[in-house]
């Protein structure tokens, strides 16, 4: 079991993601520079958060055109696991591995705070061991996390149970006041058609350690890890 964290110029959660996999989960992890063309045999690819190319033009737009993305696409197409967090989610949408786009937050301001997420399905490698209905508390830190897609795609996402996380209140109910960035249908995380690619705005890697006061994020990587281990066994 190996992981790779892809680094673009301007990425600033690359080392957080690296530590998440390597220090907290003891997964052998490599950093992969955006100009490279393979992923060093990784089973799990993480596209980290944080301002690739300064978020200039559109968040994730320039990163999506980097050479390394061909390898990421190939990895995803062959069923490999990919998690895009925050800017990584934006990149996955830009490159077409996930549907939709992330618009400016509805209040226009950058938002850094904790949010509550409800896990909507356990049918994915990232949630199998989280459990449907589980409420997680995770931090967000983004300017453009307002998920949008056309009505047809939205219906399809709903029908195919590809909405993995929704913003909810602490009791686990969808409520516009708690959908802080104004996302369509309170969507915080979506899965690809093959369910092997996950994009999410909140940062599980920032909430996986007791010393930081919150370990809710660990469940997502733990689930992915267990799934991969089961597949390898």
């Amino acid at each position, binding site marked *: 079991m190996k992981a790779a964290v892809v680094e673009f*110029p*301007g990425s*600033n*959660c690359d*080392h*957080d993601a690296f*530590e*998440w996999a390597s220090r907290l989960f003891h997964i052998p992890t490599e950093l992969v520079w955006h100009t490279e063309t393979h992923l060093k045999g990784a089973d799990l690819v993480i596209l980290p*958060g*944080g*301002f690739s*190319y*300064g*978020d*200039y033009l559109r968040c994730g737009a320039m990163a999506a055109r980097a050479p390394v993305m061909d390898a990421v696409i190939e990895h995803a197409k062959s069923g490999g696991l990919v998690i895009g967090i925050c800017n990584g989610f934006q990149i996955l949408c830009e490159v077409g591995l996930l549907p939709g786009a992330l618009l400016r937050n509805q*209040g226009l*301001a*950058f*938002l*850094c*705070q*904790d949010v509550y997420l409800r896990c909507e399905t356990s049918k994915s490698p990232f949630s199998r061991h989280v459990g449907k209905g589980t409420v997680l508390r995770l*931090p967000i*830190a983004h*300017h453009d996390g307002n998920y949008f897609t056309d009505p047809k795609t939205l219906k399809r996402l709903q029908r195919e149970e590809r909405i993995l996380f929704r913003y909810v209140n602490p009791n686990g109910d969808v409520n516009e006041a708690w959908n802080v960035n104004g996302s369509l249908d309170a969507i915080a995380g979506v899965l690809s058609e093959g369910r092997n690619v996950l994009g999410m705005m909140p*940062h599980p*890697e*920032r909430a996986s*350690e007791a*010393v*930081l*006061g919150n370990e809710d994020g660990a469940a997502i990587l733990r689930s992915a890890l267990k799934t991969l281990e089961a597949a390898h066994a």
Partner: protein
Amino acid sequence: MHEPEVTEALALSHGLSAEEWRTLLERLGRTPSFTELGIFSVMWSEHCCYKSSRVHLKKFPTQGPQVLQGPGENAGVVDIGDGWAVCFKMESHNHPSYIEPYQGAATGVGGILRDVFTMGARPVANLNGLHFGSPNHPKTPALMRGVVAGVGDYGNCVGVPTVGGQVFFHPCYDGNILVNAFTLGVLRSDRIFRGSASGVGNTVWYVGNKTGRDGIHGATMASAEFSEASEEKRPTVQVGDPFTEKRLLEACLELMEKDVIVGIQDMGAAGLTSSSFEMAARAGSGIRLDLDAVPLREEGLTPYEMLLSESQERMLIVAASGHEEDVKSLFAKWGLEASPVGSVTDSGRAEIFWKGEKVADLPVDLVVDDAPAYDRPALERRDFKERLHLDLSTIPDCRDPEETLLQLMGSVDLCSRRWVYRQYDHTVRTNTVAGPGSDAAIVRIKGTSKAVALSLDVNPRYCRLDPYEGAKHAVAEAARNVSCSGALPLAVTDCLNYGNPEKPEVMWEFRRSIEGLSDACRELDTPVVSGNVSFYNETNSEGIYPTPSIAMAGLIEDVSKAVPSHFQQKGDAVLLLGRTDGHLGASEYLWAVHAVEKGAPPPLDWDREKALQKLLRDLASEGKVHSLHDCSDGGLAVALAECCLGERSRLGVTASLQARSHRLDELLFGEDASRALASCSPDIVQPVVNKAREAGIEATLVGTVGGDRFVVNVDGQRLVDLDVGRLRSTWENGLKRVVGG
């Protein structure tokens, strides 16, 4: 090249005084060229050479076993043990932020980040101190929105968490807001880099953004008063480019791992000029620059413009010769250009060439070390004694403490800062153990069990009423906040914001502040390791209150012992540590409720303060307490309420106080120094009280944590009984009244 003739009149219009101009002519032995005049005008400006403050700054204690680098470099460095060190500094970006709040604040953050990574440290935490005019002033909301977005967007993009700070409102800042930015970085204590140009023949590299006509004379602008005219006559505003900053940061830190860099400095105020002259001055060397090699963003820049440009995100690096390819390829990896623009010489001169012509040839020491320094006249403020006197008999006691408390909790100075810090990424880098909202921010140091605790403080009202005592309080409060988290205060950086130093009353405020800061830092054993002075915060002759922002860094050896500020556990006992004398002078209560700004700041007794802070740290390290919160602006009632308003904890409290001989407002809202609130398990109250007594600190059981109401009884009478939710919404909506939304 056609250049203006250099005359005394031109020199004066460049901000030099007649006397400085005479000195210059005499020492140089000739009339400077136009380019050279430009160099003198910035290097001898207040902003660059600290001419009004230098003699006074010498009074600071700057040494101690923990100090690895004191003032004089780009930032100070402090040892935190086991081979690790922290590097930090604070800087003002006041004038640019008033002119263009978003870009001014953003580039302020950019500048301080460069000062810190220049030293070889990886920036891990930012703080910001913001002072705005009256909430009712028509410019305040837009300035606030712009500044906060600017601070946030820049730090967020670079990926350095903004973990704390201060926001203060007062009409004295109506025409001169303050934006003070602080960065702390982490480094190995044997890998400190300095801004020194040594090694004859070594190459001088220019890296980062190209040079445009940005901010020419920014340094001189920061050295003069504002007037309506100067609001019109603006230089090209610098635009921040955090993406390039991030790449510069990574590239420089990566290059520092190889043994290539001899000296490095960012191009801040006065750009290429100050960086090259200062680096040569520190090394006692000379420097040769070829301006033809300077990368330009637009055509036709003159040598004068190239030397004075304040384009952002640029660094000057002296690299050992023979490593040219290493330097180039490393920056290329990050999509940045590195251009060789000169070399180190042993001439003691800066020789600057352009198109085959020598456009400047100046002795480095004349420009840097011999810059003017003044001991300007100081005169006690006319109303000083009168305003220290407070006659409480003219002020009615509060009749409805509940109403008064709500008024204070929703007031702009005491309400929640969440509107601000929600726009700042404070969790990136996964080190934030306690972020904004806590007394001190706590940032763990990965790879160790340590954490640093940070607090930024100043109470300008105290400083206006008594600059000496106010300065002492700034240091004491910052240290107390840090001690509340369980950390040992190590050292401070300051940002000294004042009016026009040519006015004796301003100079008096400045000198008294320096004395107060110096005494406080000596008492608390927290030397000053870096800092910044911003004078001329005046508009149409109206100056700001003396505002010495203090940022304190402290060390927690074992991060698992860090203590939060808010109540954690239902049933816990609440103890007040320290003595309540009911001091109302200079208080937030008098200002917010009675619009009175009078009286002396609370007396500060060093023995008591030090004993309290040691007690706080001991309680923390022994794991006896669940929370510690400093009791300062707003007094005891406000501090109690704040303990209930944590991001994550939602606990009420029932407190029972004794008025003794005090008025109610004295008891509830007096701001006696050297106090803190502790919460602990009820069964260890007695050991905690005993421990406090041994330390000579009064400890009083004042209440019990729990429930969803905030209750205060005085002498058995229930005076406050509020739903915590109501308290919270009042407190959280305070800033929205200013900025909307």
